[in-house]
């Protein structure tokens, strides 16, 4: 692909329709993301503000989330996973593409039109210190959704708030405390209770445990799992911790520089990663078992993530890929099943990784690797 700046314009380059949709009935799909692209203009200068480029935060991403399931979204910082989540949540308008929620097109709805949808889509934020208004009491914070949607008032509201607090493992007596009086884990529980208040269908978890201590992480993850079971919730779960994603997800999407590199059922992706990037990520994750860790070949990627303002041509991963060949910089790989995988497991790679293949050896000799 010659220096083309708008991959979205040259449409059929990327995946067509129902990626990983085989065997899922249309009515089982809660969220469908179709070719969603989000570009942020980069402006230069003071007053006049010419647009000098576009940060291609999310570029032509399509995926589906079945009801009651969890889709894990992994990727490095800057890979666009949080932006994608905010597009799905309707917090930022998408540049192009469609977001379909529960059979309804909710792309770029006005604030007013979005209001009823808000009841069904909630979010748990990454930083429990900034996601709770420090000047409001816990009761008021958790009760906010009721106040906004006028669903419960007075004593009824208080009763429901205290129920929620109990459900997420908080002491209902602490109704009148301020967020500053709670620990990080407890604060995150407050965030969970707030997200849960309106009994949403989808909860977007934007790195909900990455700011927490490891011992607290497990508690919050288990809470999320329990809630999913009890209320049939669907999660879009964003994390950069692969073990966390493995623990909670039914299927996994790996993002790199605004694109999805690999998408499939959790075990397929973790056991037989096809995209070299997925393989590298998995090999980099620390293993609990020292024997496993010792036996494992680490694939060390060189260089940094390229700028999303000017992403590499062809496969966006090719400058750092140990298997890159000339084709990779010329032609963009499609997101499709590779090496006879199930139709639900797709990867965007011309030269997918085979099971047992030693990627570390495939890497060109690098002197700086210690």
């Amino acid at each position, binding site marked *: 692909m010659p220096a083309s700046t708008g991959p979205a314009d040259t449409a059929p380059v990327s995946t067509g329709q129902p990626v990983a949709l085989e065997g899922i009935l249309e009515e089982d799909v809660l969220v469908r993301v179709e070719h969603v692209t989000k570009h942020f203009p980069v402006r230069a200068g003071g007053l006049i503000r010419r647009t000098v480029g576009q940060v291609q935060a999310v570029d032509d991403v399509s995926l589906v989330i079945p009801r009651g399931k969890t889709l894990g979204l992994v990727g490095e910082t800057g890979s666009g996973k949080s932006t994608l989540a905010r597009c799905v949540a309707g917090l930022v308008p998408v540049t192009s593409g469609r977001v379909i929620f529960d059979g309804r097109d909710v792309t770029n709805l006005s604030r007013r039109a979005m209001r009823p949808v808000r009841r069904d889509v909630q979010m748990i934020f990454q930083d429990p210190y900034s996601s709770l208004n420090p000047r409001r009491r816990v009761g*008021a914070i958790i009760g906010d959704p009721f106040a906004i*949607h006028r669903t419960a008032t007075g004593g009824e509201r208080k009763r429901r708030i205290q129920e929620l607090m109990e459900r997420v493992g908080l002491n209902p007596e602490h109704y009148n405390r301020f967020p500053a009086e709670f620990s990080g884990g407890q604060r995150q529980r407050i965030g969970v209770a707030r997200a849960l208040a309106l009994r949403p269908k989808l909860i977007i978890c934007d790195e909900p445990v990455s700011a927490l201590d490891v011992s607290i992480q497990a508690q919050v993850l288990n809470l999320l799992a329990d809630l999913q079971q009890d209320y049939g919730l669907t999660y879009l779960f964003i994390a950069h911790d692969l073990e966390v994603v493995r623990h909670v997800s039914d299927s996994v999407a790996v993002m790199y520089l605004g694109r999805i590199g690999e998408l499939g059922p959790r075990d397929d992706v973790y056991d037989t990663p096809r995209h070299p990037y997925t393989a590298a990520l998995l090999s980099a994750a620390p293993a609990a078992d020292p024997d496993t860790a010792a036996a494992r070949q680490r694939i060390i990627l060189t260089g940094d993530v390229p700028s999303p303002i000017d992403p590499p041509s062809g496969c966006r991963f090719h400058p750092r890929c140990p298997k890159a060949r000339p084709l990779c910089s010329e032609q963009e790989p499609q997101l499709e099943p590779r090496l006879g995988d199930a139709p639900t497991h797709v990867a965007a790679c011309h030269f997918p990784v085979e099971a047992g293949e030693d990627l570390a050896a495939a890497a060109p000799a690098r002197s700086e690797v210690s």
Partner: protein
Amino acid sequence: MAALEAGAGLGAPPEAGALAARRGSGRLALAAFARSRQARIGAGVIAGIAAFCFLGPFFYHTNQVTVELGSGTLPPGGGHPLGTDASGYDVLGRLMLGGQSSLELGFGVSLATTVVGTLYGAIAGLAGGFVDAVMMRVVDTFLAIPSLVLLLILVNLFTPNLWIIIALLTMLSWLATSRLVRGEVLSLRTREFVQAARMMGGRRSRIMFRHMVPNAIGVIVVNATFTIADAILTYSALSFLGLGLPPPHADWGTMLSNGLNYLFDGYWWLVYPPAIILIITVVAFNLIGDAIRDSLDVRLQRP
């Protein structure tokens, strides 16, 4: 807890619970403020000075209108506890009169500055983009002009009275306030709890008054307090340069300026009283400002 239950039990409107909680937060801040020694000293001093300036003249009658050269520059003692100045005005009585205009001016400037600066800054911060850029470049331009020079020119264009001086000082001080508020709004806008409120479908007005204002109010109030002190100082500087209100109007800066002419004659009572009361007043306002800042910090509040 009790307050909230009461609010809820009264079959109050939907917002009752939240309102009660908000009041609670304000009460906590007040309690923290009252506990602070700084605050008690500052507030006590200001109350004392205000009483001295506004109530004092009822008990201590002096002639501050007609010049009596015969009784000029009398040292403290006798009928004049702080002596008299060159025109024969009683210095103690003049301190009261001068304090009135200084305090009125301080509060006036602070109020006007806070209203104008907050609105301007909040609009710029919320609008963002081009509007924000233009609005803030205007502020930058005015800030680039040395304020005292600008003030000297402006004062010469008008025949000053108290209102005009308040207006002029406000023109200079709202710039810094608007910057402060804009910065605060910009940072609040990206906080996750504001996004969470949007996520829940909260209206703009709700986000503004429930989430932004309570979190920005502290900075604004603290700034307002400091603005009082600043305005009193700037006004005194202006008067000191002979550009304050014309006689027979009195203020501390003018007293200081006149007194300096006689310093080498040993008439210390013309210099020290206005200087000391000016310093005490400004320090007291700063103490209050610091105490408010501390008391609004949730982490320092004891529930």
